[in-house]
């Protein structure tokens, strides 16, 4: 049979004699079945109009018209380049990040470009891009802050432990050392921590200590306790409580015979130091002495 006769057969190009001879071969029936079966096959669905809409939104809008520069335009283009460089320089200076810090024994309120409010607790640093806010809606946080985000505005709080993404809400982020606690008071936030993404509705908190033991807790109050006159602790190590005391009163603290890993649950005043020290020492069977800007905290049975 002639060259490529199968292709010619499918295309109806065989002569009657050739076709007759082909029909008599034992393979013919199989070929016929493949040919007819395959013509009833279909590829995956393709929605032409949807694809057209996608392409139209992806293609550049200029229509590919090329405008050639006139020789006289040349000096203009040089001038444009100079202006561009000046603009770039101005832009660069403007995009430098703004940094706000609340020192020990201080609070600091920050109003972000979108009118969101942030209250920084003592010993906290917040960095954000002041003039580039529209493109870079994110802040960097080290310490503890309470966020009241303007409605409909989304942005991200980056910390050393993980990211918190926000959509019109009130929430508190604490990141100090290996402790990372996010509490949501209103709306919804998303916490991204070590590859895990957790959505946190109002009234719940997410807590990480020492990189382990993710724990979900409930939040009962309307705002974090520290924004008022006191700070509440729920099962926090004594070391953390003492550090927080230090930050709130800017005092040096010395401990003697105190188990710093013991857990403390309670509330300490942020305005009355003696009251705060009583709140810490009494339930833990500790005593304290204050001298100048130093506090000595010691176990009752210690020498």
């Amino acid at each position, binding site marked *: 049979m002639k*060259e490529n*006769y199968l292709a010619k057969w499918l295309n109806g190009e065989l002569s009657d004699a050739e076709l007759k001879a082909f029909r008599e071969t034992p393979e013919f029936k199989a070929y016929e*079945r493949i*040919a007819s079966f395959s013509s009833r096959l279909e590829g995956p669905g*393709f929605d*032409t109009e949807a694809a057209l809409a996608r392409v139209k939104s992806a*293609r550049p809008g200029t229509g*590919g018209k090329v405008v050639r520069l006139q020789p006289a335009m040349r000096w203009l283009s040089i001038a444009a380049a100079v202006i561009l460089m000046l603009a770039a320089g101005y832009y660069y200076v403007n995009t430098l990040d703004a940094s706000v810090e609340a020192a020990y024994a201080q609070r600091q309120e920050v109003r972000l470009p979108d009118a969101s409010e942030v209250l920084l607790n003592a010993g906290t640093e917040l960095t954000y891009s002041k003039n580039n806010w529209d493109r870079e809606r994110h802040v960097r946080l080290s310490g503890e802050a309470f966020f009241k985000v303007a409605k409909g505005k989304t942005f991200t709080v980056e910390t050393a432990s993980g990211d918190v993404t926000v959509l019109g809400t009130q929430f508190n982020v604490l990141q100090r050392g290996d402790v990372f606690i996010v509490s949501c008071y209103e709306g919804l936030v998303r916490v991204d921590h070590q590859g895990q993404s957790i959505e946190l509705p109002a009234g719940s908190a997410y807590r990480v200590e020492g990189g382990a033991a993710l724990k979900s807790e409930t939040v009962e109050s309307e705002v974090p306790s520290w924004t008022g006159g006191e700070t509440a602790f729920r099962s926090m190590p004594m070391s953390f409580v003492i550090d927080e005391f230090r930050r709130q009163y800017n005092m040096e603290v010395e401990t003697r015979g105190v188990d710093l890993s013991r857990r403390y649950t309670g509330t300490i005043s942020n305005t009355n130091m003696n009251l705060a020290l009583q709140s810490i020492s009494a339930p833990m069977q500790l005593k304290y002495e204050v001298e100048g800007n130093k506090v000595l905290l010691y176990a009752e049975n210690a020498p």
Partner: protein
Amino acid sequence: MDNVCDDQVYSEIFRAHSKTIFNYIYYKFGNEEKAHDAVQEAFVKLWEHCAKVTPEKARAFVSTVANNLYLNVIKAEKVRLKHREPGGNVTRESPEFLLEEQEFKEKLETALSALPENQRTTFLLNRIDGKTYAQIAELEGVSVKAIEKRMHQALKSLREDIDGI
């Protein structure tokens, strides 16, 4: 004068050729995502060059772009195809017949996937899309004779594979 930069003309060209480009790349690699990307790439490029490409040349232009997109050989996946039932008396088919049809379809799909990519593409463009050998030759940028050879070889290999020779 018809100009590809005209949105109307451009849309018509898209409607006429995008599905072929899509199927062409799908038959090649068995990957829908790549096929969608190829359509996107080819027609965005066409838009970018619309001032230089006449409507008559547009089809060849998009084929060439799609063809060049995956020059680096990517491993083809199994081509999955749907089977259109012949209209009319389907309901009278016995379960045995339907089962056998299904088995045949699976055998054919496996055999198709075993074909060299250029034979599979040619065969399916002809069988499914009803493209003539001349049209496929233009799409692939080879002679009609070369397409006939691929077609012949494809059918031969499919038959041998299905009959277990």
